[in-house]
């Protein structure tokens, strides 16, 4: 995987809006944005309702992913193009799902909804109708996904990268600052984790920094990318963003996203937690 295959530009999207081999999917943190306006012919996934199993508090199953893509008119050979608000957080989260379940051709719009809006490109409210397919997913590729016991075992052994803001890492805040500061879990971080906020990889307009700049972010923080790496945040979407940077843009293959993230780890009984910068 490389930057050339993982990212598309807004111009590329504009030229492929009516390409029948392409399905554009918007995935936002604020799920009301799509209804206010979206790229022509784009469909949307609701990250909470479509991508998560609320009862089991887990990502949707293989069967659930197959049902979602089938009703969305996405086939196994479709080129899926993802974008979203908030610097593509949930678009990269959805991208990680597509890779986890073995989809061949999935891309991300560099800069996402923000760059599109700042460029004053057109948004429409018409919702496209798509013909259902019979999508067949692969079993989860667990080389992309870390679970809690693996994180505990990685303390002091593997690279653990906490991609939240410094205030969340230190234990000052419990959640990103645009969300209410609530939740029963303790604050802090996994011992030996390095705090490399996801935002360091993004330019102010939401596009990704250059390859050299992206590498420098990790090497300057003392991360040896030859070692296995686990990324986490609070609920697994910002760490999907950083996973995307490492695995898809920089081509580092031994990187996993811990989607349980601090919501799970910070609620476990008897695990080590550090506070402070």
């Amino acid at each position: 995987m490389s930057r050339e295959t993982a990212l598309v530009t807004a111009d590329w999207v504009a030229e492929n809006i009516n390409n029948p081999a392409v399905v554009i999917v918007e995935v936002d943190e604020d799920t009301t944005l799509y209804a206010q306006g979206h790229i022509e012919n784009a469909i949307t996934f609701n990250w909470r309702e479509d991508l998560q199993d609320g009862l089991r508090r887990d990502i949707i199953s293989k069967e659930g992913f197959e049902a979602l893509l089938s009703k969305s008119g996405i086939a196994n050979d479709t080129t899926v193009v993802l974008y979203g608000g908030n610097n593509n957080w949930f678009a990269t989260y959805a991208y990680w799902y597509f890779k986890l379940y073995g989809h061949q051709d999935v891309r991300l719009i560099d800069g996402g909804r923000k760059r599109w809006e700042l460029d004053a490109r057109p948004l429409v409210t018409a919702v496209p109708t798509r013909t259902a397919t019979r999508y067949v997913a692969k079993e989860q590729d667990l080389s992309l996904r870390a679970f809690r016991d693996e994180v505990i075992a990685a303390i002091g052994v593997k690279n653990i990268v906490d991609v939240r803001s410094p205030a969340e890492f230190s234990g000052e805040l419990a959640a990103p600052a645009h969300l209410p500061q609530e939740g029963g879990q303790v604050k802090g971080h996994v011992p030996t984790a390095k705090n490399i906020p996801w935002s360091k990889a993004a330019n102010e307009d939401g596009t990704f920094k250059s390859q050299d700049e992206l590498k420098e972010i990790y090497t300057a923080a003392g991360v040896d990318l030859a070692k296995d790496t686990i990324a986490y945040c609070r609920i697994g979407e910002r760490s999907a963003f950083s996973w995307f940077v490492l695995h898809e843009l920089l081509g580092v293959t031994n990187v996993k996203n811990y989607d349980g993230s601090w919501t799970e780890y910070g609620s476990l009984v008897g695990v080590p937690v550090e506070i402070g910068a």
Partner: protein
Amino acid sequence: MKTCGARPGGPSTDGIDLSKQTVIQGQILRDGSSDSVPNGTAVSNGHVRLLDSTGEFTAEVPTNTEGQFRFFASPGAWTLVVQAPGARVEKKIVAERGNATDLVISI
């Protein structure tokens, strides 16, 4: 345009326990005023970034249809960066718990 009698600023804080939350919020308007009261058009396609006292990115939200935004932060110094098509404005603020910081930012 703001409707008659409406006070420019962020969304209602009804339902938010301001004794526990440090709220930074406001409204982004295109330039315009009447009797020194900002009354420009609400910027509904803006983005507001919150940077901490060291300039580190902390959060970002898009403005709503009224041009409004809100952050839940912690007490101290912060910088807001407002972006909209053709505009970029920075504003330094000091937030405190108990009193919402409510801003009107014209671009």
